[in-house]
Structures are given as C-alpha cells and as structure tokens.
C-alpha cells in the first residue's frame, strides 16, 4: 500500500511537471517538435541522404551551380553545384555530434571539479574556483578559439575546445549546489553517522543536483550547436568541404551580394531555429523542475 501511495505521488509529480512544462503554450510545443526533428535528422543523416534525398553532400557538379530549388534539388545547389539540403542534413549530424559529445565531456569534468571544490572547501576548492575565475575573465569565445588553435582543426579538437568552454558553468553550478546542500540537515546527519565522504557526495548530493543539471545541459546543447557553427564560420572548426552549418553560412555569405540567398539563409534559418528551440526548452524545463516556480504562472 505504501508502494502504491508513492507511485501515485510520483505520478502526480510527473503530471504537475508536464502541466507546468507545457503551460507556456504553443511555443514550447513547437520547440519540442523542432528539437525532435533535428535530432532524428541528425541521427539518421546518412540513410536520409542516401535513400530519401538520393544526394551526395560532397558531389561537385560544376555544370549545375546555383540551381534554383527543383524536384531534384529541393533547396537548389551551391557554388559548386552541391545539393544544399543534403549538406544541411549532414551539417545537422555534425552539429549534434560536436554538441552532444562536448556537453558530456564538459559536464562530466565540470561536475566533478565542482563537487570536489564544494565538498573540500579548503585549498583544493580555492585552486579550482580561482581557475574558474581566470577562465571567466577571458572572453569565452576567445578562450575557445585559442583552445581550438591548440587542439587543432579536427572534429575531436572542436569537441575538446567546446567542452573546455563549458567547464566553468558546470563547476559554478555544482559548487553552489553542493554548498547549499551541505548545509542541509540530512547531509550533516549522514556525516555524523559516519558515512564515508565519497559516498555522501555521490549518493546524497549528486542526485539532488540532477534537476539543475538537466536544465544546464539543455541550454548547453543549444549554445554548443551555436559555438560549433561559430568556429566553423571562422574556419577554425569543421573544415570545408565537410558540411557544417557554420561553414555553409560562411561560404554562402559572399554570394549574398549577388542575390544568392539560399546558400547562407537555408543553413542560417535551421541553425537559428534549433538554437532557439533548445533555449526555450531549457527555460521551460527550468520553470517546471524548480519547485519554487511551479504553481506560479
């Protein structure tokens, strides 16, 4: 019966979450749809390119440059006669890979450092937090650019640079949460009972930080999609001819004056929609996961 009760409670909790999550109206729903479509396209980019579009994103066709949208090339072709839609689909995959892996890496390292800094406040904590201060004093874009110069132009290099950029955010989030949770009576209680420190950190503190982590991760996914295309736009991320939304916009930019808008506008609009969608989802998640904001409109 107790079990019944708790599952019932969980159920209403979940329903409350869903209710607040979608209470922001149609915009959140649209964002969710955009995010899901983006992820599906990115995951199945290769089969979609090969079997649905029947276009190779790298196939140069100099006889057919700047083609208008047609049955064969749904969004037309670029300056080298490559199919724009196919390149966007492959670019989506590139964005997702960079963003997801850099988020995982950055969040893992940042969370660990934050936990340690918050739990052992002394010298270790100070060193970590000073490092964060320093990184936060360097404009993040310049920091990421410099790191990507060090790590090189490979896909892995981009991921590494992007994850570096995330570290301070997660350290600060974790640090704050741990300090706050440490003051809670139940943590003090477990400590008095003599539970081992590492166990306290992982079993008692970490799970309590999940809601904030999820929000931060969703936001970071969006911002790293943007940063990846930023680096690629600056030609220090994903290098041409490998398609990425950033380098597509960069390539197409020079043709705007000639009136060839599709080259940079098509990937640009996709990029904008996806990034905004992730941001709105992050906002909605925060509002519905934060019990203080729940119930308010």
């Amino acid at each position, binding site marked *: 019966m107790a079990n019944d009760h708790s599952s019932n409670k969980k159920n*209403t909790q979940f329903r*409350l979450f869903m*209710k*607040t999550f979608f209470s922001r109206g149609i915009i959140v729903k649209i964002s969710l749809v955009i995010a899901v479509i983006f992820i599906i396209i990115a995951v199945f980019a290769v089969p979609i390119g090969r079997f649905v579009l029947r276009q190779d994103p790298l196939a140069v066709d100099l006889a057919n440059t700047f083609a208008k949208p047609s049955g064969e090339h749904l969004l037309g072709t670029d300056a080298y006669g490559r199919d724009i839609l196919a390149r966007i689909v492959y670019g989506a995959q590139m964005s997702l890979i960079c963003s997801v892996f850099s988020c995982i890496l950055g969040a893992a390292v940042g969370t660990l450092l934050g936990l340690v800094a918050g739990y052992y406040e002394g010298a270790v904590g100070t060193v970590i937090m000073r490092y964060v201060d320093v990184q936060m004093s360097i404009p993040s874009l310049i920091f990421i650019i410099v790191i990507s110069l060090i790590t090189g132009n490979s896909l892995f290099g981009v991921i590494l640079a992007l994850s570096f950029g995330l570290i301070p955010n997660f350290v600060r989030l974790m640090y704050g949460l741990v300090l706050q949770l440490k003051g809670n009576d139940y943590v003090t209680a477990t400590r008095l009972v003599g539970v081992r420190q590492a166990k306290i950190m992982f079993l008692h503190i970490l799970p309590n930080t999940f809601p904030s982590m999820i929000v931060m991760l969703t936001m970071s996914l969006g911002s790293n999609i943007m940063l990846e295309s930023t680096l690629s736009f600056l030609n220090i991320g994903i290098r041409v001819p490998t398609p990425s939304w950033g380098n597509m916009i960069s390539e197409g930019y020079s043709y705007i004056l000639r009136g060839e808008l599709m080259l940079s506008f098509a990937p640009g609009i996709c990029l904008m929609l996806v990034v905004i969608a992730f941001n709105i989802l992050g906002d909605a998640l925060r509002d519905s996961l934060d019990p203080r904001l*729940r*119930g*308010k*409109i």
Partner: protein
Amino acid sequence: MGERLLEVKDLCTSFFTYTGEVKAVDHVSYYLDEQEIIAVVGESGCGKSVTQMSVMQIIQSPPGKIVGGEVLYQGKDLLKLSPAEMRKIRGAEIAMIFQEPMTALNPVITVGKQLTEVIRSHSGLSKKEAWKKGVESLEAVGIPDPEARMKNYPFEMSGGMRQRVCIAIAVACNSKMIIADEPTTALDVTTQAQVMELLQELVVKYKKSVLMVTHNLGLVTRYADRIYVMYAGQVIESGTTECLMTAPKHPYTVGLLESVPSLDDDKEKALVPIEGTPPNLANMPETCPFLPRCRYAADKCRNSVKPSLRLVDEKTNHYTACYLDLDEHFGSDPETLGQEAEEAGGQARKSAAGEAGTPAKKSADVKADEQTGKEGVTL
C-alpha cells in the same frame, strides 16, 4: 473596552493552484473592540496569517483571492473599497507587524527614509516635519538615540530593535489597530517580553487595539483578553482567555494546551503532542476536519458533516465547533477546574511577572490549571 472596531464576517480566502482550490480561510468570523487585545492561535498553516493578510488585502494575487465575506472596520466594509481607498486604511488606520524583523524592512533604504515615507504617504507633512515625527515615534517605542538611528540601515540594528522600528511605523501614523503577526517568534525570550510589554503599553497609553497571531500560548494567556483558535482555515473555538484556558471545549484546544511545557509544574507531567498532521486544505473532508486526530471522536462525529460554532456560555462569549461536551471526558466538574485554576494562577503570575521585569497586565487573565494544562512560557 469600547466600541466595536473591526468585525470580520464569513471571510473566505482561497489559493488557486495547479493542484486545485486551497481554502486557506474558510468562513472565518471574529471581532475586535477598541482597546482590546485578542489572539488568534493555531498550528502553522492553519490560515491564521492568511486571514490577517486578507483583512489587509495584501494577499499575493494570483494565486490568492478573497472569495467572500465582509471586513467591517468601524462599520464600513473594507472589501468594497477601491485599491486607493484601501491603501489609505493600511498603515494609517490598521498597521501590521510581521514575524521576521530581519527581513521586514527594506535592506537598502535607511530606517529614517522608510519611516518618513510611510508618514508622508498618510499625511500632508513636509519632509522635515515627517522626519521630526519619525524621531518622536522611535523615541515612543523606546529606541535610544533616535536621531542617529534614523540614519541607520536595518542591518545595522538588532532583531528586537528592528521590531521596535516596525512598531514605530505603526505608532507614527496613529493607527487605531495593530495586527501583530507572530511579532515575537523570531526574537529571543527577553526581547519577546519587551516587545509584548511595548504593545501592551500602546493599548493603555495610545488607546490602540491589538490583534496578535501566535502559536505561543504563554504570551496569549498573559496578554490577550480573548482568544480565537483556528484549525484548517476555520475558527473552531473562541472565548475569553480565562474560559478557554480553564475550560476548553474543543479537543484541539485541549490538545494545544497539553502540548505546552510548563515551568510551574512541580509534579512530573508528560507533554502530550497532538498526533497526526492537519488535513490537506486542497482536499478537505466533509466531516469535522480534526476527526482523524481526535482522541475523543465519537460515532456522531464520524457520521455527521463538520460541526459549526455553537454557543457554550454567553457570559464568557465561549463558542466551540464540536459536537461533544468535553467535560464528560475529563470526568471532572468545571467548577473545581476553575478553582484549581485560580490557585495555580497566583503562582504563574508571580513567575511571569518576575521574568518580564514588569507586572503582568491583568492578573485575572493569567490562569493555569494543573490538570488541563498549561500556562508557562514557551521557550
């Protein structure tokens, strides 16, 4: 005791949340006469503070809303006033003091500025005159060196001092009535006594009326003329302090009294906590709201809708919302109960007076009874 100052009739306030309508205040009625001190007691979350905030119309809206009733202040219904008219009542006619003096004052504005702003928004005084009046009222509440204190920020003062500033704001505008929402809960015991003495002085010296919200029965017995006991958003028992302390009729009031530690008991007496928790206000039962926690619950209680207030004794204005006649369960005669109370009262008064440093207000109000309870200072 003078004219009727405030009369609240069937006040209902609800909060509309995702989980449904929460009836925080459910048909509450009470009154306050001039120069009277009354107390509203109950557990946290029973709606005692929300009732007062409804009277002042400072409920956060949404989600809160006053859904019914009347608040008659000197005969006119405050709920029918426009927001601008109501603003002139707040602070000027009815002042309110809150629980947390630490956070009740704006941290980035000096005490003087906050004080003069209130004074000026209720009078046509110039800045200079308002300042002067502010200094006077700080002096009136016993703050030393008021001129210098005016220039202080709230964080530069102690908790008791800040609570005095809050009271000074109430004094400055000559309000007839002060609602004190747990005014002493956040203060230490000596400061508690000082603040209560100050409030009592205001009643005598400035002919004000005080309504205090509290869960500290020690304070109530010493200072209040009448008591309203609230439970789950409703008044479940009311009457003079004396009759409620000595002959409570509602099992909840009995429980409250039994759960208060007493300094005056020579004998070992176990404190009896009230088992269970108050009902969920969003999902109230049809029956008596106290039923699940009631030791005396009878078949009648289980099979009837919730009881409404009924008159017990006209002389003491004693009402209760209970079907039972509790004396039967105590197995003792109300008369003897009363006598024992008289005797114990003398003792209690002495110790209380000694602690507060000044004589307690009315000896008749200070009553304790060895069998049912209860006087004493909650520490």
